[in-house]
């Protein structure tokens, strides 16, 4: 049965279905409803909710809870994620699973509270210090806010690494039907956890490796996990790409806009298609490469001055022209505006 649900609330419902029983967070617009829903629901099902004194503390509480082996999460928006970067580096280094939701708002600095996609570099490329990656999922609907949060818990446990749900103010704030299946995912056994029990007494959670050889081996181990994830975990979605001349590429809310743009372009006789990365790390490079075989133009649209477009260009390696269109400051491009931009571009002679 479908419930009309806010994206931010769907995150918490999905998390609880995924067995998450601990939430540590700090309020920030436009992510606060996640903390509010966690505060409402988690204690009713025997879970822990705590509003921390800062995002720095929140992510370190997550570190502590994850050390003890529980499924745990936090959520924030850009400025808060900046503060959590330290913790994310430590979590990845100590191989601790957790789920972090970033409901991206306009930046840099205090910016504004309207949606942007400008945390891509900070989240997808690392953000904290050292050679580590976050596993990054980008929902495009309220349903996916729940579904991908659930998946994020599974991936986080599978790779013993932070998984980030990277979304934006629109997806967080909007309401859409949400259908929850009573599919409850179970956390795997975590024999490495420190629980204050005789069996777990020999365990240690740490991220310090003073000897260069030891640290190198550790970093290579992490690298191996990321290589495996790059092989197994890329996820993507396509729309009307079978005969496409022009391939639009966008994630999250922009992929929704581009879906409309594709229909509008086809009404005007342009054979357009959409490629939407669902995982931003690992980036679905192989799938994208295959999609561009027969296209004449790749049009990337982002609500940033150009971040994911770098991954698209690295993937396509100059085989097809890759153009970039962006809006920032909290402005979401309309389907019509992207359509008109492309129509103009296609009418103009190629330089």
């Amino acid at each position, binding site marked *: 049965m479908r419930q009309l649900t806010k994206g931010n609330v769907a995150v918490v419902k999905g998390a609880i279905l995924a067995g998450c029983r601990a939430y540590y967070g700090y309020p920030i617009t436009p992510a606060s409803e996640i903390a509010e829903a966690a505060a409402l629901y988690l204690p009713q099902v025997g879970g822990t909710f705590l509003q921390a004194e800062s995002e720095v503390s929140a992510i370190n509480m997550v570190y502590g809870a994850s050390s003890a082996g529980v499924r745990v999460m936090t959520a924030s928006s850009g400025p808060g994620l900046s503060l959590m970067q330290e913790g994310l580096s430590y979590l990845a280094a100590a191989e601790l699973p957790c789920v972090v939701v970033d409901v991206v708002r306009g930046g840099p600095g205090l910016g504004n509270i309207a949606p942007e996609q400008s945390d891509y570099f900070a989240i997808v490329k690392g953000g904290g210090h050292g050679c580590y990656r976050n596993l990054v999922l980008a929902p495009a609907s309220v349903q996916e806010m729940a579904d991908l949060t659930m998946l994020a818990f599974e991936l986080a446990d599978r790779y013993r690494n932070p998984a980030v749900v990277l979304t934006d103010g629109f997806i967080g704030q909007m309401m859409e039907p949400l259908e929850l299946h009573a599919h409850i995912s179970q956390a795997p056994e975590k024999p490495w956890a420190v629980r204050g029990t005789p069996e777990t007494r020999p365990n240690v959670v740490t991220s310090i490796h003073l000897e260069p050889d030891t640290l190198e081996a550790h970093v290579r181990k992490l690298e191996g996990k990321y290589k495996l994830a790059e092989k197994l975990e890329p996820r993507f979605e396509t729309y009307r790409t079978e005969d496409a001349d022009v391939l639009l590429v966008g994630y999250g809310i922009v992929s929704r806009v581009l879906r409309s*743009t594709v229909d509008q372009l086809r009404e005007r006789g342009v054979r357009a298609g959409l490629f939407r990365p669902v995982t931003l790390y690992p980036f679905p490079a192989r799938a994208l490469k295959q999609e561009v075989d027969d296209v004449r133009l790749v049009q990337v649209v982002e609500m940033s001055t150009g971040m994911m477009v770098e991954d698209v260009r690295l993937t396509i390696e100059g085989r097809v022209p890759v153009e970039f269109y962006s809006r920032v400051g909290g402005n979401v491009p309309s389907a019509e505006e992207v359509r008109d931009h492309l129509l103009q571009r296609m009418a103009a002679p190629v330089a």
Partner: protein
Amino acid sequence: MSDYQVTHSKSRVFYDVFERKPELKHQTHYCPGCGHGVAHKLVAEAIEELGLQERTIFVSPVGCSVFAYYYFDVGNVQAAHGRCPAVATGVKRACPESIVVAYQGDGDLAAIGTAEILHAANRGEKITVFFINNAIYGMTGGQMAPTTLVGQKSTTSPWGRRPGNEGYPLHVAELLATLEAPVYIERVALCDNKNTMKARKAVRKALELQKNGAGFTFVEILSPCPTIWKMDPLDARRWIEEKMLPVFPLGVLRDRTTPQVEDSAIPQRTMAEALELEPLEAEAAELKHAQKAAGHSLALNMAGFGGQGVLLLGQIVAEMGMREGLEVSWLPSYGPEMRSGSAHCHVCLAEERIGSPLITHPDVLIAMNEISLRKFAPQVKRGGLILYNRSALPEGFSVPQARVVCVPASDLADQIGTAKVANVVLLGALMAESELLTQECAIAVLESTVGTKAKGAALIEMNRRALEAGREFMKKAATPVLH
């Protein structure tokens, strides 16, 4: 059999051989005369005596004691700089039966981790914090600490700590003693045998309190750092006595045996109940309208002042669409503007999956005030509809591309008895124009959303009348044009 009897030995809470240590696995990495060795010993012995080894989780800081897990044969978690109390919070709340020890130095706890320690103490986290205060940064080579004494030289206060530039030594135990929640706070010193024995008692007491389920316990331990202080171990102990004690007086600052106030219990529900996975009785099953042709959709923009129920109206329409079996999206304006001025939302109803929830050219604009009308009317689709909450358009204002119906919704709502239902009057007007939304569904949604919130049959009745008033008004005003 040996011809001697062991009467004193290393605590069993220490590993016999320090296997985690890269080299010299039989000795610690601490300098001769360092207070950490003594403090570790006191903590290990207390854990052993209280029978807590299996249950203990030791959270180590950044600083010389970062490698405490080389030595303590308990569960170990190493934390980022200053974050032990936050990490310990996460650990303890995940494992309430465990004994959680956070062990921190003065840079870690009193500088970078000030927020973490203060708030963990203020929440009364059931953890024990051992605070090693040696008035200097040891591991990084002798920089100034928050607890560095006035006039004390360090590599970053080469002229001695000058209060005008660097402020005064921070008195953490006293600071925490201003809080309500902590149950035990004491400052001790490792400056001579007598005081070390006092420290031993304090360490044990703190852990015993945690064992008994008491709240936050804290022991500040004044501790020698001969290497950085550039003293021999005996002089270092003397320096504590002569220089540190006058600044950091010893003693018990909090010892509360009275039980803490228990929070009231939060009612427990099953996951299905809590997440409302079961259908509510009041909610009707989704209605599938087979007669609707594919491709039907409606894009609405609703706008007005904050408080006019614009966002709620949008939610009601979206809920109705969902129950009619349609795909729907509701996208609000959000944030401070909700309080200070205008609010608006975009609602899409469609038979197919919805692309952009952001509407550039709506089929329908519901404008509840003049500002919204002027702002959004030009965006309405050619042949679209504007429902305007007034009896007439502003003078000289026209919208050539769309049909405008002036519905004096606020006036009609007033006649019904409350201005609050003006949005429902407009819903009634909208329904007169669209086959996508049905009367029975509207009533069901109003009962479950508006009705439940207000908990009043009277308000439900007013909503029914408002719905009807809107429909009636439209019947008189014009014939339907949409779909």
